[in-house]
């Protein structure tokens, strides 16, 4: 067992936050701003804004392999090398397969970023709000359990986090995708604008919009206070941004929390479990293993936020066993780790457009257009449940002809021609959380830090297959009608996980018998433990989830501090 350090005041805090990624960073900011002495535990190394972005200013020719992975890197990392951003310029921000093993009962591509900032350095920065069509989904369609909150509960908190993070967007006035606090949008391309116009004229219920994204397109006072500047449209976000042009914990919430003087950030601190005191009837602290020395220690606080990333949060709670909770903390109903879900990103369609050839683009853009969910939005209309959103891009690449050799080839390479417009969409499908889709801990195998290995037992179902088929049919129809040609559809059959939108296992709900967390993200059975990362999600909807985690976190901290003041926690 770990050492007991109860006498050491430096081990006592007002709040403990496990994890420093997109939601943990928010918990740190909110607690420290409210004056609470806050400990943030991060299992990975420290990554300081600006200082620890080693590749951020490198020119393409300065990379030995011009961005490509080596064969050795691919062979050593069969899982993470599938991720689009795991390339020569950003691979230092990803967990390598061998360092952190897990057991795939069904294939699951678990993409991880163990460092201060977590995956907030690497995310795709798309920030679409949920609507009541999403929160009411499980109740309307009879799956999972009813969300204990509605859009109205979260709307002010969406506004709160959007203003600070800096979200670029258009007011689109769509009931299914509520507007937020937007900084100016970047341009759609000529073909994206054409398709937007075409779709709105030809489909009453379908829309193409500018994808709202966490980029500071016009810095406000609050962003200047964070030391962040206007997005310079480098489109190299995965390297870490020297301008703070996009939102990350590293550029935004963590330094903000540090400025309050109330933050203690401990990198290389692997949380083993949460300590539960049966007599007090609450959690008292956490057991931590030093990532490097493997020394055990404990920290204590009256409130604990678990923001370790969806799978890791499940692991910590499952591993937090006590006489009172032999199956994991707060887990009387046995549902912890179950009803795990993700987004279905298997399907892509691409094509070309031979019109509008008098136009092209200039510069770069770190986002694209977005097609909000239209399937089964207002009512059930297909033989599958729920639906999908899609990205949409229309870009016009230029290229040199590779013909010939000698001076002919050399001349060719010194010229560039514009090709046709290339268009494409990828599917972002809602999946249905099911009891059999689960995470659980191995009984024997442990990692280097003495924590049981997690099993992933999550797969696609018939609903997902039907949705892929429908995506291809509907997108092919829309693309064809719009005059796009050479259409190619591709089902990657990629495993769950590669979407990097894994969610659930510690779901919110009204009833302690069927859920783990209440409407404040508080464990029903242990009121001073909160979960506000992806693990809390009751259903997945189609929107990129990070913005919702941020809003849930800020809301839950506000509630927790009020409850502490009332003496309820």
């Amino acid at each position, binding site marked *: 067992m770990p050492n007991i350090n109860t006498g050491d005041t430096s081990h006592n805090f007002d709040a403990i936050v496990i994890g420093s990624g997109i939601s943990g960073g928010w918990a740190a900011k909110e607690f420290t701003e409210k004056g609470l002495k806050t400990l943030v535990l991060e299992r990975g190394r420290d990554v300081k804004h600006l200082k620890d972005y080693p590749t951020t200013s490198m020119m393409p020719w300065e990379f030995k392999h011009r961005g490509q992975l080596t064969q050795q890197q691919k062979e050593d990392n069969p899982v993470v090398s599938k991720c689009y951003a795991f390339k020569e310029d950003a691979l230092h921000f990803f967990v390598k397969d061998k360092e952190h093993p897990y057991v795939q009962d069904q294939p699951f591509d678990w993409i991880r970023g163990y460092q201060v900032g977590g995956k907030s350095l690497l995310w795709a920065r798309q920030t679409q709000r949920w609507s009541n069509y999403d929160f009411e989904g499980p109740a309307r369609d009879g799956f999972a359990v009813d969300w204990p909150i509605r859009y109205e509960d979260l709307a002010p908190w969406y506004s709160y986090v959007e203003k600070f993070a800096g979200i670029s967007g258009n007011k689109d006035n769509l009931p299914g995708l509520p507007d937020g606090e937007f900084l100016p949008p970047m341009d759609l391309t000529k073909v994206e604008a054409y398709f937007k116009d075409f779709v709105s004229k030809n489909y009453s219920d379908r829309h193409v919009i500018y994808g709202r994204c966490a980029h500071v397109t016009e810095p406000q006072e609050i962003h200047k206070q964070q030391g962040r500047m206007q997005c310079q449209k480098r489109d190299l976000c995965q390297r870490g941004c020297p301008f703070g042009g996009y939102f990350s914990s590293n550029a935004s919430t963590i330094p903000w929390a540090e400025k309050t003087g109330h933050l203690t950030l401990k990198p290389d601190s692997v949380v083993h479990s949460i300590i539960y005191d049966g007599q007090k009837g609450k959690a008292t602290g956490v057991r931590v293993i030093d990532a490097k020395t493997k020394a055990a220690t404990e920290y204590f606080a009256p409130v604990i936020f678990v923001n370790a990333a969806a799978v890791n949060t499940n692991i910590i709670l499952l591993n937090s066993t006590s006489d009172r909770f032999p199956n994991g903390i707060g887990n009387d109903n046995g549902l912890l780790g179950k009803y795990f879900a993700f987004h279905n990103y298997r399907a892509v369609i691409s094509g070309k457009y031979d019109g509008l050839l008098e136009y092209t*683009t200039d510069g770069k853009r770190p986002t694209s257009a977005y097609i909000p969910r239209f399937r089964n939005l207002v009512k059930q209309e297909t033989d599958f449940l729920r639906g999908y959103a899609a990205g949409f891009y229309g870009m016009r690449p230029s290229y040199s002809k590779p013909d010939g050799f000698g001076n002919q080839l050399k001349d060719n390479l010194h010229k560039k021609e514009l090709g046709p417009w290339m268009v494409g969409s990828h599917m972002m499908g809602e999946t249905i959380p099911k009891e059999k889709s689960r995470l659980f801990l191995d009984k024997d195998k442990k990692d280097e830090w003495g924590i049981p290995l997690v099993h992933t037992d999550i797969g696609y179902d018939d609903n997902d297959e039907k949705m892929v088929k429908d995506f291809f049919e509907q997108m092919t129809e829309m693309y064809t009608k719009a005059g796009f040609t050479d259409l190619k559809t591709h089902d990657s059959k990629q495993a769950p996980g590669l979407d990097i939108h894994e969610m659930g296992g510690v779901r919110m709900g009204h009833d302690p018998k069927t859920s783990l967390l209440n409407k404040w993200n508080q464990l029903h059975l242990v009121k001073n433990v909160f979960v506000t990362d992806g693990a809390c999600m009751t259903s997945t909807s189609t929107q990129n989830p990070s913005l919702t985690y941020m809003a849930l976190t800020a809301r839950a901290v506000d509630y927790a501090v009020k409850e502490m003041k009332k003496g309820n926690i």
Partner: protein
Amino acid sequence: MLVSRRTVLKQVLFVSAGLAVLPSCLHEKKPPAYKVKNIELSSDEEATLTSLADVMIPNGEKPGARQVQADVYAMTLMDDCYTKADQEKFKTGLQAFRKEWKNGDEAFLKKMEETAPDASPASAFYHTYKGLLIQGYTGSEYYLTKVFPYELVPGRFHGSVLVNKG
């Protein structure tokens, strides 16, 4: 600065003079050894890679493939980023290619241009190596600063601009 440039100039003059007085040794001159770990190359094979790079994108007013080290890049990629099977295919193809191509034989290269990459081992080698040389050339500092400058900080995105007809 001045001193080092002079040193470089002296070396260049020395090398040129050496080549001038030792023409009979030309076929034995050592080509630049490619630092490859996973592919074994004889000096003759290396010479073919070097010669083909010179022929593919020749030096002139503007630098050629070898002047921007596109051949070094090509072999680094083949060595580090390709599978064992692809490396073996490359090596076999190189050997087949060498049997049929003598430096200066443009007709054979024209034939290669018209042959599908999967038609023969020699053709597979030709197209793979050519592709890597193009990658190395168009990804070089020369190309990305002098020909089509790479913008690290564009600071702008315009979604709809008229194509410049000039």
